[in-house]
């Protein structure tokens, strides 16, 4: 690089970055985040309480157990509502259950749900272990066990009983637990069949509270150890500035994975991100995928996909120029999704949910620019 090029690059970079107008320093949010980091590093007081409670349950004589203390208390086997573990951790009640999350009229789709929301579709896969967190400190997990196993042991301390739950006509032998996010958790399974791993590491989940609507969330996303996904479904497809584009969805080890693809003249581009699977009555995932258009570097599109409830008949997108468009609907694995794209320089400014009579169910302007947010219509 010549001295002239060197000077030119420095000048342009200073001009470019120096012109970025930063917002006021969010000092309270920073300190709050710092406390969250400290909480995790310090062993997460709430997580420690949860672990201590687990240890108390595991070590105390049966007669001395206090029902309000344990972080993990198994539900009765074959609970009619599919609950297989519940308790209190970090001051909050939690409950894990296997239930059907498909929209009414569609084939049954079993999933583990945490407190009735944030689903993790399950398949008969003994050995699969999954985890999720809703905030700093405490994680929640379950392991699918073989018929021979009567319990799982978390971190060598907490003994969690196996519960057989029948969902969608199939039995699932599962053990659920809460654990501290302060360190890597491990599960062992006594009396496991030959060939079963001696230790099952709980998939790591990391939680940092989002700072704004434009910051990707990561709460509520189940991470599985087994890939038991389904074939991708195409949510929407069309043409923007020439290239073909499509939004696809596929359930993977980390929730619903969306991908916006564009194909230009001789080049391809793709943007993907994974988000939580919603239950019919739970918060809905709103996913944003920004993408440059091949062969046209000065512009791009943002693909949006929303998992909507059965009550939603239309999803209306209002753009920054005031125009509106209705999202295309698509069913994948018994779940309803809406998708559309917004071309630069337009931005999505509002989403409105409408019922079958065209009445407004809900509306929000808290929309992501990248990644997902969850919204309860």
């Amino acid at each position, binding site marked *: 690089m010549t001295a002239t090029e060197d000077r030119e690059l420095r000048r342009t970079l200073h001009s470019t970055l120096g*012109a970025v107008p930063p917002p006021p320093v969010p000092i309270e949010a920073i300190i709050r985040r710092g406390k969250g980091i400290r909480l995790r590093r310090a062993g997460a007081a709430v997580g420690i309480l949860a672990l201590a409670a687990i240890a108390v349950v595991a070590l105390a004589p049966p007669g001395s157990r206090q029902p309000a203390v344990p972080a993990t208390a198994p539900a009765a086997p074959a609970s009619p509502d599919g609950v297989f573990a519940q308790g209190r951790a970090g001051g909050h009640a939690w409950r894990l259950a296997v239930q059907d999350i498909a929209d009414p009229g569609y084939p049954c789709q079993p999933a583990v749900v945490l407190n009735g929301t944030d689903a993790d579709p399950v398949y008969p896969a003994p050995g699969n272990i999954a985890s999720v967190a809703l905030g*700093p400190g405490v994680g929640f997990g379950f392991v699918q066990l073989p018929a021979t196993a009567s319990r799982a042991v978390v971190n060598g301390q907490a003994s969690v009983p196996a519960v057989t739950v029948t969902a969608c006509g199939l039995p699932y032998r599962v053990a659920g637990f809460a654990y501290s996010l302060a360190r890597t958790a491990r599960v062992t399974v006594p009396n496991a069949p030959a060939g079963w791993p001696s230790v099952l590491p709980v998939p790591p989940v990391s939680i940092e509270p989002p700072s704004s609507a434009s910051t990707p969330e990561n709460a509520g996303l189940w991470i599985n150890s087994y890939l038991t996904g389904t074939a991708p479904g195409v949510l929407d497809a069309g043409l923007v500035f020439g290239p073909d584009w499509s939004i696809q969805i596929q359930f993977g080890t980390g929730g619903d994975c969306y991908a916006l693809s564009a194909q230009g003249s001789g080049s391809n581009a793709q943007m993907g991100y994974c988000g939580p699977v919603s239950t019919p009555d739970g918060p809905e995932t709103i996913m944003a995928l920004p993408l440059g258009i091949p062969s046209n570097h000065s512009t791009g599109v943002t693909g949006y996909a929303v998992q909507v409830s059965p009550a939603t008949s239309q999803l209306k997108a209002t753009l920054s120029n005031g125009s509106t468009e209705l999202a295309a609907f698509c069913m994948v694995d018994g779940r309803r999704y809406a998708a559309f794209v917004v071309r630069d320089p337009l931005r999505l400014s509002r989403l409105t949910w409408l019922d079958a009579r065209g009445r407004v169910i809900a509306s929000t302007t808290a929309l992501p620019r990248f990644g997902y947010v969850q919204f309860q219509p």
Partner: protein
Amino acid sequence: MTEPRDELAAVPDVIDADGREDFSAFAAARWPGLVRLAFGLTGDRGLAEDIAQIALARAYVAWRRVSRANDPDAYLRRILINASNRRFRRRRVTEQPGDPPDTPVDGPADLVGERAALLTALHQLPPRQRAVIVLRYWQDLTDAQIAATLGCSPGTVRSQLSRALAKLRESPVLGEGEDR
């Protein structure tokens, strides 16, 4: 989604009231530079603010050490680069060249076009090469300072810089800018 945010309120401050005042002043002074540095690394204003927040939050946790460091800015830069790298790893994103960076500001059309072209070209570099370019030409750091920030040798910095500059020189995006 219900986060147990109330539990954070119960977490005692890492630093006392005086320290908190010092940290607030430190954060306010560094915030614009951190956001701009993170924007150069990511091309996304929202993500840049998020990463700058993470860097300052980590500095808050380690405030006693940061405030006594000979060069707290170097410490902060390292935290920010690490936060940026972690953020990219955790996102599990399939990111391809061509993802549109934010156009930073308004201004004369040719200037905005020049800035957009540079950001697009930067965004097409691998993260480490992008970091080397931004640290050298925006932060004006020496090879040794960049090496300390990135946790590599000065030789690696020089080779990464050389490769990055070669790619920028051949970038069709910047070429288009010259043709305008």
